[in-house]
């Protein structure tokens, strides 16, 4: 990064550091924000209802204290932190919260959330664990139930036209994210991983139109750079669940690596798949969220009959991204106590090996206290591939 910080990145930083700033402002103007965790909540339905989806975040800097009253410490530390901040009142400006069936901890803690927080609206979206025709039909019905529950909450009908319009703006948002990722293809990339993750995180706290506007400004800014502010270094890919604090990515970049692509929840996993336009909007959404979001939570049948064939189909998107972004090394960052990702670690390792991409697997506890430990591992890894 150059000495001169641009104005627009200051805005991003501000939204990132004071997460929820804009929501608090807009709440004063009568806007309702609906919180959500996990990439599996269909945001378009919230937008179509006239409310604004708001991704609830954790903090690696804040020790978990209050949350432990109501939630066991055997839950993944990321989710514990999100819960802890919530019960401490950090997100009290929200009007409601939607939790999907992303993992066991989300299911088992739904009551703790819905009884423990002062929001007037709570909803649980059940997500099938398998992806076949009958699951999609079921999911259509489940999303329709979600739509109805929001209608009841807002007292306004959510029409097909509302849904189509919401799908359109969310797809636009995804196009802009893609365009931002394009900026990473240069070597060195025009935008750092730290800047990009901060931008996307800030975006997930804004109404979708504002998020679109912000991304446009960032794009203009980055394109205007012409020359990269970064040094050449190993091109690193980040794999894992939700990484909504930039510490790891920042660490990689401080140590001389450039984060150029990812498949994290608040990155490509969430932002790349688009919703089909035309046809029934609910059905299009169910196909996007169940079919296209590549989350380990969803079981996909091994049709190849071999292990190699199976991982090639399950993790094919990773292979495509690593090629597209000319990746030289990958970090698989998994939280302790995360069953969906944890059980895939050996298979993912094998897949990276088949791609001939060196991999650094990390198991971490979502606390800035572990940065020292991570530093040695990341530095050694960069030395190893450099």
């Amino acid at each position, binding site marked *: 990064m150059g000495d001169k910080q641009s104005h627009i990145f200051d805005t991003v930083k501000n939204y990132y550091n004071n997460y929820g700033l804009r929501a608090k402002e807009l709440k004063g103007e009568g806007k309702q924000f609906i919180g959500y965790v996990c990439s599996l909540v269909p945001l378009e339905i919230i937008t179509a209802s006239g409310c604004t989806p708001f991704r609830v975040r954790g903090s690696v800097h804040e020790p978990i204290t209050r949350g432990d009253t109501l939630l066991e410490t055997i839950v993944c530390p990321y989710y514990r932190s999100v819960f802890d901040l919530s019960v401490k009142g950090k997100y009290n400006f929200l009007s409601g919260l939607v939790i999907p069936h992303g993992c066991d901890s989300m299911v088992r803690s739904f009551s703790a959330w819905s009884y423990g927080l002062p929001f007037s609206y709570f909803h649980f979206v059940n997500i099938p664990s398998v992806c076949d025709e009958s699951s999609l039909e079921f999911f259509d019905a489940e999303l329709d139930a979600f739509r109805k529950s929001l209608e009841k909450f807002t007292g306004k009908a959510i029409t097909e036209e509302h849904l189509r319009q919401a799908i359109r703006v969310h797809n636009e948002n995804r196009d802009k994210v893609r365009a931002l990722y394009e900026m990473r293809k240069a070597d060195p990339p025009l935008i750092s991983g730290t800047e990009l993750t901060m931008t996307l995180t800030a975006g997930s706290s804004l109404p979708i139109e504002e998020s679109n506007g912000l991304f446009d400004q960032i794009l203009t800014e980055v394109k205007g750079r012409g020359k990269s502010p970064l040094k050449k270094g190993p091109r690193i890919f980040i794999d894992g669940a939700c990484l909504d604090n930039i510490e790891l990515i920042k660490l990689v970049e401080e140590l001389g690596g450039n984060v150029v692509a990812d498949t994290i929840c608040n990155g490509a996993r969430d932002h790349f798949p688009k919703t089909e336009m035309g046809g029934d909007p609910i059905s299009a959404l169910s196909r996007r969220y169940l079919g296209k979001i590549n989350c380990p939570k969803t079981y996909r049948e091994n049709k190849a009959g071999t292990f190699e064939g199976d991982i090639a189909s399950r993790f094919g998107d990773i292979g495509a991204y690593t090629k597209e972004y000319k990746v030289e090394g990958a970090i698989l960052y998994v939280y302790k106590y995360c069953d969906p990702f944890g059980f895939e670690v050996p298979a993912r390792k094998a897949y990276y090996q088949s791609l001939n991409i*060196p991999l650094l697997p990390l198991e971490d506890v979502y606390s800035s206290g*572990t940065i020292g*430990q991570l530093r*040695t*591992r990341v*530095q*050694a*890894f960069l*030395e*190893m591939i450099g």
Partner: protein
Amino acid sequence: MTKVVILNKGIIASIIGPTGPEQRRLANRVMEEALKQAALSIQEITFIVATGYGRINVPFADKQFTEITCHARGIVHLFPEARTIIDIGGQDVKGIKIDVSGKVIDFVMNDKCAAGSGRFIEVIADTLGVSLDTVGDLSLQSSHPATISNICTIYAQQEVAASLAEGVPLSDLLAGVHQSLADRICRMVNRLRVEQAVIVTGGGGKNRGLLQALSEQLGQEILVPEEPLITGALGAALMGKEIVEKARQNNTPLETKERILGAVEIL
């Protein structure tokens, strides 16, 4: 411990000194001694590489590398056939996998818990009032290793003290402690798919009791360098030498710090 290796064509000085709260000043002092041994002044040193836990605290180092890279480099220099390295230090235990060309291809490190590190044995030896140099040989005299059921070092310390009071022989306790540590280490390095030759380095390489427990649990023969404590420093020196040679080849200037060995004030 702070170690210094000075390299020319071969090793011309190698010194091991203690590491205390005042790492920087000690790095100074150990450096001074090494220079004395080599009969060199600091200005005559072409390039300095620091590694290890305190690598960022060495003010006169021109470059820092992690101990993983340096241990691997040092070990491959001593044992070209090495494929698996287990470095057992006081802070960390590391497993490193090396390919045929001597390149690091994978590594694992222990978590921030003393149970799987050399500190475990240091603490227990201290509790039992045995010097660290003798724990290995003492434990080899045991025929009935005790079971250490606690994982936490502090709890294990308490457990060992209680067993000793109950009359469990010292050698059995130490053998149990070595098995417990070997178990933790094996669990970790097994993730690398251990291949021959297996080299153990770091302080743990000097402990025969631990080496035997490790060898049994891994089901592999283990090789140990003659001076296991300095392989990291040796590797760092070798890395430095490469940097110098590369710069000379490409005719590029070397980026070095000022060669000053003044004492550093610590708050």
